[in-house]
């Protein structure tokens, strides 16, 4: 009963805080919405594009060129051995006949058919898992070179290094944007609390006069912080939905040009609900800390 009473009172005092400076409250919500929108839109796009990314062959490949004398049974055995190796995602066998046919189709050369013998070797294309580090690729390449029936081995590690570097940079950029957004949100809440404390100086003086404890004094400010970030998150979800709906047809058309399917969608409702709750908790906790600090400073 007591817990309910003090919380109900805190909600009423929170409403008074907003009524004292409605413009400041709205500004804080708008700033919070702006800070939330960038990572929320990024997360929505990343989730929508995830199936597309899974279709891309992003694992490094090692081409094993086999000796012309290698019998078919040996090649099959080697293919099975390689497929069983840890870190190997897939092993594809391109027969010398298939390779010649593909070459002829690609070059449009009819002269290849006049060759007395097929000069191309059988090739085993070993695809390593996407998480393989560039150094690990080099090590595997050296090991595969030493296998029997393997005449030469080539790995295109340059693009894999580039891709790994790009992914690292992208991860760092996402972390930086997330960190900046988080810092901005904390600053918005803290600045908002300090302003509310300034406009509520008389109220705080009276609470001290009547023997209110710190928790009683802090609670309305904490609720205000929670509501500010929760409303900011709601507004950000709305903005993200509107933005994605506006660009979704163009993005789908662009993906179709490359033979892919892309449907831009906002995060699922249960994710948004979890983010809303997290925003409210972070807002409440930050505001409570800010208010405690402010009250200590003005004691």
């Amino acid at each position, binding site marked *: 009963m007591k817990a309910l009473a003090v919380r109900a*009172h805190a909600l009423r005092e929170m409403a008074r805080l907003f009524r004292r400076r409605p413009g400041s409250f709205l500004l804080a919500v708008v700033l919070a919405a702006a800070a939330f929108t960038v990572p929320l839109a990024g997360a929505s796009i990343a989730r929508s594009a995830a199936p597309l990314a899974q279709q891309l062959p992003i694992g490094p490949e090692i081409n094993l060129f086999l000796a012309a004398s290698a019998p078919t049974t040996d090649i099959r055995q080697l293919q099975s051995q390689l497929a069983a190796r840890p870190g190997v995602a897939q092993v594809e066998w391109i027969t010398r006949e298939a390779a010649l046919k593909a070459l002829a189709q690609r070059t449009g050369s009819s002269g290849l058919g006049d060759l007395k013998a097929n000069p191309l070797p059988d090739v085993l294309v070993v695809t390593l898992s996407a998480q393989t580090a560039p150094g690990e690729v080099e090590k595997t390449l050296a090991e595969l070179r030493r296998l029997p029936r393997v005449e030469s081995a080539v790995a295109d590690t340059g693009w894999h290094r580039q891709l790994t570097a790009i992914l690292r940079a992208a991860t760092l950029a996402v972390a930086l944007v997330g960190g900046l957004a988080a810092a901005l949100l904390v600053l918005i809440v803290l600045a908002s609390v300090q302003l509310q404390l300034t406009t509520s100086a008389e109220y705080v003086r009276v*609470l001290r*006069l*009547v*023997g*209110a*404890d710190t928790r*009683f004094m802090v609670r309305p400010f904490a609720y205000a912080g929670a509501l500010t970030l929760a409303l900011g998150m709601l507004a950000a979800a709305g903005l993200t939905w509107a933005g994605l709906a506006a660009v979704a047809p163009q993005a789908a058309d662009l993906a179709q040009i490359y033979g892919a399917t892309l449907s831009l969608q906002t995060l699922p409702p249960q994710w948004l609900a979890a983010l809303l709750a997290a925003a409210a908790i972070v807002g409440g906790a930050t505001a409570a800390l800010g208010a405690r600090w402010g009250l200590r400073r003005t004691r």
Partner: protein
Amino acid sequence: MTQAYPANAPLIELVRVRKDFGPARPVLREVSFAVERGQLVVLTGANGAGKSTVLQLIAGWLAPDEGRVAVAGEEPARLRGAALTALRRAIGIVPQELQLLSDRSVLENVMLPALAAGLSRKAARERAGAALQRVGLADGDAPPARFSAGAQQRAALARAIVNRPAVLLVDEPTAFLDAAAAADLLHLLAEFAQAGVAVLMASHGEPAPLPAAARRLRLSEGRISE
């Protein structure tokens, strides 16, 4: 807190209290006095004599540089957290500036200490209504600005007594009141004292004849005299 405290012991006790605001501003020098349950003590002195400082020391907002300040046997300056909060709730304070919040009704102002003590809104409203009746204000639905100076003083007094304190500190309550209103207020304070509250009132003069039971103390040059 006050239940465990001996009934015949003074509720307010200052023993050889010294308080300076910097080396050039000594305010209190060896101030000693006590206020017992049921006593109305009027502390007089010129402006700047240190009357408000005495009240702030008792309320625990200031700490003495030397000596001992105790309320119901507890030293506010040594208390922290819940113990300090509990002690402050046992002290009703009417500051000189009244500090009634203008963004709510007088009734809601008076309800505030009860809500801070954890009472439900209904219980706080009932208690605030009773406190307002006790000080002679029947209707507290309007904001403080709509009330006269005397009524505002009474409203601040109602807020101070709503949690049924053992100690009542009143700072210059008659400063802006005419003689009749001042006399009424002093009569009211005497009634609280008769009900068992230790009442300490600070005033720069005597605007109205003091009740017969009131004890006078004079603060001059940092020292107390009867």
